[in-house]
């Protein structure tokens, strides 16, 4: 299948689930209900891959996995931007796995949907970079201890996987290119995390200020696909220059690996028209082989309303269907 369409990760939670996060008693039933509904909602967009139903079992991508690990404690919130804060944990002793943060959600998703799934998992580099350190001597030690835990989490998922095709796992690393001097360490930790595992491994990186740092190491990374963002930097006029996608040329100069190209800006309510998405994909095809191009939003759609996110995904699928007719 050409131009495989995939979700990236998070999706807006229904109101009843948001309320339930403040009430432990209602939480589990609400999570299960929201997961089932969101999987169905995503299926109805026509997506080929519906991720894990929008991460209904996770409040956010950092605190969720960290809360299932030992060796970390929370002191309070730190600023993300403006008046938005997140809870950043401090490592105070050797990191250890307590239980698997993803397995329960994964089991329900497998039970509820027969569609292709892809399990997003917060990557070890981001976990390391977003934590305070009161224990380890250097960042590499922290990184590899997180990587061991993430690897164990993935192995658990592969054991629970019963379908004939390979399990699709997406490692999310928004912090990947934050420290240019650590790119080799990042590459080694990524390869270690998935080494020898019988999975289809995806890497998702978003909002980097320097993607070339990543492109350079992609040839040495053992991942099936790299799911990246470009739409938020592009013009929104159909006939405009595709400024956001110009650096795909650079990507293609470093590697011929598979690319999941972001065609939806997740930070705006502007619903990309089908023609705009078609234009973006046609531009991307100048540099990426048709058989190696997948299609996705820039990132998880959690900051958009469910209705806006749905319409965006629906248009993405329509654009791909139009192109499939043209190319197949």
């Amino acid at each position: 299948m050409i131009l495989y369409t995939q979700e990236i990760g998070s999706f807006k939670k229904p109101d009843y689930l948001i309320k339930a996060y403040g009430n432990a008693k209602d939480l589990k039933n609400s999570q299960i209900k929201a997961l089932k509904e969101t999987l169905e909602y995503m299926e109805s967009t026509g997506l080929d891959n519906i991720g894990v139903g929008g991460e209904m079992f996770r409040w956010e991508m950092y605190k969720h996995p960290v809360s299932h690990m030992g060796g970390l404690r929370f002191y309070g919130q730190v600023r993300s931007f403006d008046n938005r804060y997140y809870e950043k944990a401090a490592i105070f002793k050797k990191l250890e796995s307590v239980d698997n943060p993803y397995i329960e959600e994964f089991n329900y998703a497998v039970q509820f949907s027969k569609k292709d799934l892809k399990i997003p998992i917060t990557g070890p580099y981001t976990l390391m970079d977003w934590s305070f350190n009161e224990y380890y001597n250097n960042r590499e030690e922290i990184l590899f201890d997180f990587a061991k835990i993430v690897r164990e989490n993935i192995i658990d998922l592969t054991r629970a996987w019963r379908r004939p095709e390979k399990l699709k796992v997406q490692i999310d690393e928004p912090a990947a290119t934050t420290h240019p001097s650590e790119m080799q360490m990042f590459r080694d930790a990524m390869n270690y995390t998935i080494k020898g595992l019988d999975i289809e491994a995806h890497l998702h990186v978003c909002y980097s200020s320097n993607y070339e740092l990543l492109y350079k190491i992609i040839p040495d990374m053992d991942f099936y696909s790299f799911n990246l963002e470009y739409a938020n930097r592009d013009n929104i006029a159909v006939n405009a220059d595709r400024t956001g996608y110009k650096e795909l040329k650079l990507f293609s100069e470093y590697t011929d690996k598979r690319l999941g190209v972001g065609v939806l800006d997740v930070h705006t309510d502007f619903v990309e028209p089908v023609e705009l998405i078609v234009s973006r994909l046609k531009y991307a095809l100048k540099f990426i082989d048709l058989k190696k191009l997948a299609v996705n939003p820039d990132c998880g759609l959690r900051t958009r309303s469910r209705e806006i996110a749905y319409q965006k995904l629906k248009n993405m699928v329509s654009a791909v269907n139009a192109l499939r007719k043209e190319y197949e």
Partner: protein
Amino acid sequence: MVSGLFPRSNELIREIKRFELGKLSAEKLKEKLDIERTQFLEIQKQLKLRIISEPHFNFHDLMRPFTVMAQNIESGTLTRYFETNTFYRKPLVTGKIKLVDLEPKTLKEYNLPGPYYFKNNKITLPSPHYFYSLSSFSSTYADFFGDYLDILNEIIKEYEPSYIELVEYPFPAKEKEYETLLKNIKHSERVIVRKAQAYLDPEGKIYHDKMPFYSYPFKRSYPVLQQIDAMNTKMEEPENIAENGVVTGNENFDFLPREIALKKLEFMAKLEER
């Protein structure tokens, strides 16, 4: 000495959220900001810190007030602050900059009500180099420098701060530029230069117990020692802190959870007792 912005209390964060949702008026938020500011100044006095600092609770980032007070500076896109997981809105300079109003009544998007500076205590200001490096410009640094310096001088003239913490990046900048800056800035004798992102180690090692000293780059007798790690929760050991100088953080204190920032403040107070 507290460096830069101090973390808001959970209650203040909640009140600001209410303001942003239109559930709290600007006047009510001002009252809350004033209470929190007064309490924080009192904490510093009780701890007997020699330099009392404004916490700047109504700054979302160091440069944000300039987008309200000056013309031709807009809030641009969210941008990663150096190699951190904190983002700021990159100032977008669209023309010749000029101070319009130090305490404007009309707010621009993404801002909180002023006043942004106060009399008597230490205030934190972005140096010309820092502001220029972290913004989007169509003009050259040389064109920008004089206009920006005028704005800094008007702030200093109006508020007469006890000290001016000038946040610098890159560091050390060219000495000639400093000479020009210090020759032209008001009350240069009160200026304390602090490096943004001090002792960020390119090798990724953690320098916790052997932080290098960054002292004031001019011929002053009293160095400023950025030895308190505002980027990590680990507490410093007193024996690793030098005894002669103003001890402060390597970044804005609001990179820390408030509980730890307060602990580090107490630690600095104990150092002053030595």
